[in-house]
């Protein structure tokens, strides 16, 4: 399984996203090396189709279809939790579904 985490340091959500991702991978018994990519410029955001930080892709597919098609940008990404609240990181449920 290919697990990729892309982030931009201008957004403080990366450590929290990494911690949640590691927790979900461990809970599922998935021993995957997480490829971490720091996106540092608008050009890199364009090249990597980076819709915001953090972006997590499992086997190349974004864990959040809704936000995946946003224009590439160095920005903090908006996620929506199952109860409708806004979050700067994906929900645990979203990550678990992407790993199924």
């Amino acid at each position: 399984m290919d697990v990729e985490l892309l982030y931009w340091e201008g957004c403080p959500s990366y450590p929290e996203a990494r911690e949640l991702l590691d927790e979900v991978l461990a809970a599922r018994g998935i021993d995957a090396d997480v490829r971490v990519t720091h996106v540092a410029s608008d050009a890199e955001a364009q090249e990597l189709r980076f819709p915001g930080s953090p972006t997590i892709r499992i086997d190349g597919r974004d864990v959040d279809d809704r936000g995946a098609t946003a224009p590439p940008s160095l920005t903090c990404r908006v996620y929506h939790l199952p109860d409708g609240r806004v979050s700067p990181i994906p929900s645990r449920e979203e990550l678990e579904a992407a790993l199924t």
Partner: protein
Amino acid sequence: MTLSLATDAPPFDLPGVDGANHSLDDYADAPVLAVVWSCNHCPYVLAWEGRMSAIHRDYADRGFRLVAINSNDAERYPADSFEAMKQHASEQGFPFDYLYDEDQSVARAYGPERTPEVFLFDAERRLVYHGAIDDSRDERAVSEHYLRDAIDAVLEGREPATRDTPPVGCTVKWREPS
């Protein structure tokens, strides 16, 4: 550089989403005033802005006013344009003034680094608290109500016990030097 504690509030006169300009002097009657750097696109702002509205409403009868200012570069972040601000404020039903600092001059005077980021002033418009609204973007996990506690202190004639906390949120989107 971020405004230091006990410093006087720098003046401003900015257009609001209500179609009127609002200056610092317009809030002269407020015994305590919160100037909060904000924007439309940031998930941290979106997570906290309901609490901004609640605080504004909860303390309104004691004269407290909250003013939000968006200084982000709308050329690079179109979601933070003045038109988008008007739409967002209408959708969210903001009870507070939401102002647009297009040339970022007010942001340069206050020195915010993040959105949301609070600058709280007493009746003499001295900075008495700076930083986060509370200690968690997740409302259910909040244990320290920094802004509410600071407002309570000022209204009771005390210095806030906590006067400076690190703001958590998106970076202010400064214009690139031309």
